[in-house]
């Protein structure tokens, strides 16, 4: 077994072939493209490596002794249904290709394999799996995980408008990833090496927003102890992302409109305007057209901002992406914590896919983090998923609050179960007694209360 890591960000490819000439050749090709490469000579070794090396994609030969490529593919997908597997065969036999496809193979290539075709297929299937980490020239929206046609269409639109200065307007409910899309557009634009500055217009107090955006001179107002250049100036040459633009006060909308017409900003307290070169991407979760009708938003500004409208679908509108997203964020959690990757049970997965996700991808990330943090085993059961999503949906608590609440309820359940026996409770919770007592203290829980209950 050979393992080579070229850098921490590269996608890891596991190559399985009993021909060492093929292994060294593919390894050479893929390392030159900045992939991490792990090679093994049998299906059995491949299965062992999958749990250790955690590859992002597997390339396997079909004909091998002991375990052939089909058996390996079946076993891989039994354990990791989303792991892309590219099958290679010395013969282009249609029944083999059909069988491999039925078993979930991502692609079926005939040997001798063309280098460009192999790399292209690897890139394609890494991207489809939401794992396009390795790219010398980054693809558009690398961090956006999807397989749905709705998202694919959106990404194509984003890609099409990236290469220019056209003003983009992104709409989407909270948590759909408006800023991530804006950043993807920036990163794919000629301005990518210049600043990307994001500002949430709804999060800054009205009286401060003007000076935050346009800057101010020293002494322009009480508390203006020094000169401040403002976010437009800070983003000069790059992109300014105005999030929740619908929350901008009307009087400031006039000033913003003027900036967009003249491409000059005048800091508060200054008599001189400063030229700026900024691309504007704005976003909102509200219906801005409705706000215009109701007189809360200026029509002229709306039309100036809404040159290219991009609408991000809600998570519930693209259920085919949910499993992919859950896998992706479980993987991220495991990597962050240096722990084995956990998985949702089939029942939990069905439940999560069918859920309404009012908080969209952001809520999904919170649910994954909560489940992965609190679940003691590697398989997250339906009850945990329900609990996590239930807590999330009830009032969208912060992750810290949700964890705290869940932990308390968990401790109560365990104490009720053991009738207040600390030793048993600690064992069930997977903690030693000292740690368990600390947890009880943190939640102000007294085991004797549960013993009393038992005796009552």
């Amino acid at each position: 077994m050979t393992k080579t890591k070229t850098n921490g960000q590269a996608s890891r490819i596991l190559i399985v072939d009993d021909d060492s000439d093929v292994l060294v050749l593919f390894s050479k090709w893929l390392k030159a493209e900045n992939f991490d490469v792990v090679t093994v000579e049998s299906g059995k070794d491949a299965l062992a490596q999958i749990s250790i090396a955690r590859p992002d994609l597997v390339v396997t030969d079909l004909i091998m002794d002991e375990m052939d490529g089909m058996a390996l593919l079946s076993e891989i997908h039994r354990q990791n249904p989303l792991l892309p597997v590219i099958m290679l065969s010395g013969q282009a036999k249609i029944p083999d290709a059909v069988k491999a496809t039925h078993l979930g193979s991502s692609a079926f290539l005939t040997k001798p394999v063309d280098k460009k075709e192999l790399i292209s297929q690897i890139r394609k299937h890494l991207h489809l799996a939401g794992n396009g980490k390795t790219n010398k020239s980054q693809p558009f929206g690398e961090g956006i995980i999807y397989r749905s046609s709705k998202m694919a269409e959106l990404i194509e639109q984003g890609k099409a408008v990236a290469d220019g200065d056209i003003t983009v307007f992104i709409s989407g409910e909270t948590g759909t990833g408006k800023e991530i899309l804006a950043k993807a557009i920036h990163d794919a634009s000629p301005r990518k090496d210049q600043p990307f500055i994001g500002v949430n217009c709804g999060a800054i107090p009205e009286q401060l927003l003007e000076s935050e955006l346009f800057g101010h001179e020293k002494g322009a107002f009480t508390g203006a102890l020094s000169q401040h250049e403002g976010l437009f100036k800070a983003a000069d040459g790059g992109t300014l992302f105005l999030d929740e633009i619908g929350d901008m006060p009307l009087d400031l909308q006039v000033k913003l409109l003027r900036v967009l017409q003249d491409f000059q900003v005048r800091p508060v307290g200054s008599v001189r305007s400063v030229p700026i070169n900024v691309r504007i991407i704005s976003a909102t979760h509200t219906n801005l057209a409705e706000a215009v009708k109701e007189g809360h938003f200026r029509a002229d500004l709306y039309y100036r901002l809404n040159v290219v409208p991009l609408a991000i679908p809600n998570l519930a509108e693209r259920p085919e992406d949910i499993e992919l997203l859950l896998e992706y964020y479980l993987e991220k959690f495991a990597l962050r914590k240096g722990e084995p990757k956990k998985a949702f049970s089939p029942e939990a997965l069905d439940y999560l896919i069918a859920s309404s996700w009012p908080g969209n991808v952001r809520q999904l990330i919170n649910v994954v983090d909560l489940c992965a943090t609190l679940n003691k085993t590697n398989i997250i059961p339906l009850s945990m998923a329900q609990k996590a999503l239930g807590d999330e949906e009830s009032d969208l608590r912060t992750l810290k609050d949700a964890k705290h609440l869940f932990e308390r309820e968990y401790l109560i359940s365990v104490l009720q179960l053991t009738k207040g026996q600390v030793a048993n409770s600690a064992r069930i919770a997977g903690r030693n007694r000292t740690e368990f007592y600390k947890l009880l203290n943190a939640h102000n829980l007294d085991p004797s209360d549960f013993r009393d209950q038992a005796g009552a």
Partner: protein
Amino acid sequence: MDKIIVQCDPDLEDLIPGYINNRHKDIIVMQECLETGDFAKIRTIGHSMKGSGGGYGFDIITDLGERIENAALASDTDKIVQAVQELESYISRVEVVYS
């Protein structure tokens, strides 16, 4: 004998000598297998050559590998001998140019 010039990927320069050397080894193994009648082993070697030759830039090795694989499948000693001789001739004459 005339040289056969083959253009290969410069990135593979450090791998090509090893690849050619492995074919020399294959020839020896296949000649031994012919004596013992181990067609299965010959077929495996032919299959591997077929799968790897083109990737390194040696399409001829892929073609010869396919012929050896098919001949072994049919237990056709004459065809195997002929293809192995052609392989031996080819790798003794091949001269690689990296460009």
